[in-house]
């Protein structure tokens, strides 16, 4: 359910997603205000291509098939800003002419498919490209396509849960889970198409700049920090830590033990803890990047 029809989302979610999408589109069009005149026909052709190719069903085996979302494919070909504009145009035409996705839910669908799908997908691609190196470009594209599709599923689940249509956990299981399968097919199809395009017209993919050594270090640092965070979260025990256990053994009350600062005492519940964790992870990555960059300069 990548295209949310009207009727599923509540007023605050409609307003919030519309405002976010409008901001993203305004920012994008400001970047592309002086659109080179030859880009307009290209954007039109790509909008028509995404629309037409979404009508193709790719057989996946076991009687199943999937169609392409196209965000990462377009963003890799023409860059994130034009990619967002193309996907927004596709979503707009689908909603207005073919009632595929609601008119009131246009903001949410733009956010999911254009901003997260194309813009977020391009960021994931650049991250994976910098991490894996220039020789594994197609693998980076595949990873980006997979995670972009999963991100779209998570975004749809969050919007449905925030609207009170369904609770978050079952929505994530149903929509997010199905988007894991969508992500696998998206990765397969995107890589397959790009491999053939590279063979037929390699010059179309020659415009993407290769990752610099600094970008590689940054990607390695953020990946290491994210993996440390994930492993730490997985291994974190719900049982009391050493200080709390010692306090309990000495007969100190719970109030005394809770006076000790801990990660769990971050105010605001799990969301703020998650935010603090993400900021800390990226802070660590930034420090690693800065230190390694300074060493490079010294050498």
């Amino acid at each position, binding site marked *: *359910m990548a295209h949310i*029809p*009207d*009727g*599923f*989302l509540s*007023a605050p979610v*409609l307003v919030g997603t519309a405002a976010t999408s409008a901001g993203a589109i305004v920012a994008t*069009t400001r970047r*592309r205000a002086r*659109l080179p*005149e*030859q*880009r*307009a*026909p*290209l*954007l*039109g*052709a*790509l*909008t*028509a*291509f995404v*629309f*037409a*190719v979404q*009508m*193709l*069903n*790719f*057989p*996946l*085996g076991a009687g199943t098939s999937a169609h392409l979302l196209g965000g990462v*494919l377009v963003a890799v*070909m023409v860059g994130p800003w034009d990619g967002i*504009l193309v996907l*927004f*145009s596709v979503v*707009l035409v689908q*909603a*207005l*002419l073919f*009632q*595929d996705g*609601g*008119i*009131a839910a246009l903001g949410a669908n733009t956010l999911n498919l254009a901003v997260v799908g194309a813009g977020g997908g391009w960021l994931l691609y650049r991250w994976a490209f910098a991490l894996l190196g220039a020789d594994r470009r197609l693998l980076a594209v595949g990873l980006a396509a997979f995670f972009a599709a999963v991100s779209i599923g998570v975004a749809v689940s969050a919007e449905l849960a925030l609207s009170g*249509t*369904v*609770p978050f956990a079952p929505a994530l299981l*149903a929509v997010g889970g199905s988007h894991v399968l969508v992500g696998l097919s998206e990765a397969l*199809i995107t890589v*397959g*198409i*790009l491999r*053939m*395009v590279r063979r*037929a*017209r390699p010059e179309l993919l020659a415009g993407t700049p290769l990752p610099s050594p600094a970008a590689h270090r940054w990607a390695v640092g953020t990946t290491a920090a994210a993996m440390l965070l994930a492993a730490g979260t997985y291994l974190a025990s719900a049982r009391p830590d050493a200080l709390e256990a010692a306090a309990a053994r000495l007969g100190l009350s719970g109030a005394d033990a809770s006076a000790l600062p801990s990660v769990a005492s971050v105010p605001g519940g799990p969301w703020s803890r998650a935010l603090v964790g993400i900021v800390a992870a990226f802070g660590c990555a930034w420090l690693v990047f800065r230190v390694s960059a300074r060493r490079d300069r010294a050498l």
Partner: protein
Amino acid sequence: MSFHHLDRWADVPSPVTRLAPTARLLGTVAVALGSALLPVGAWVQMAALLLLVLAFAAAARIPVSAFAARLAGPLFFVLLASCAVLVLAPGQPLWVVGPLHVTDTGLVRFASVVGRATPALGAAVVLVSTLRFPELLEALRKLRLPSPVTAALGLSYRLLYTLADEIERLRRAARSRNAGHGAAGRRHRTMGIAAAALTRSFARSERVHRAMLARGYSGALPTLRAQPLDARSVVALCGVGAVVLVVVSSAYL
């Protein structure tokens, strides 16, 4: 294939087609927003908005059978998507379907989703049936949609069905050569078709650009027939807006 099967009632003289495209587009957005803002279980208000849409469909002289047929496709997808709400929403179980429980809350939310979606879809069907794509594009331009987007939309209108026909030709050619056996073979064949369509899109955009330059293109696409927002259209739009406002407000009072 062409867009003309969509706007079949655009040339039929009617009170709806006499309104400015901008007013018709804004009226559709007002109905869609109004129905989306209705709370769960506001059945009377959902019915009122649907009646409003049916009145406009009748005024546009769209036959009931054609309106129902056009509504059926997107409504089917809404029904399909909202089926999950029946079993995912927590509440008292009403029926057991295998391992799943249809709950009372789920049933109310399912009916509310369908009830809110139907007027919005109906309004979009009336809009598309009575408005040509260039008029829609002009309305979007007047509503200050960014020019790169309207340019992309305008050119995609020109190319969409051309590309769809081209994909169909590529599929027919591949089938005639017996390309692709089994799921993996068919997948490879479809990827080849998509890749060919993508490279041809780039080539076509270059040709279109050269043709546009030859016709004096300097970065802006001209409009051949601009219909101004006249007083009648403003009054009709205000009327629709007022009705939607009253209906939505009554659901919260």
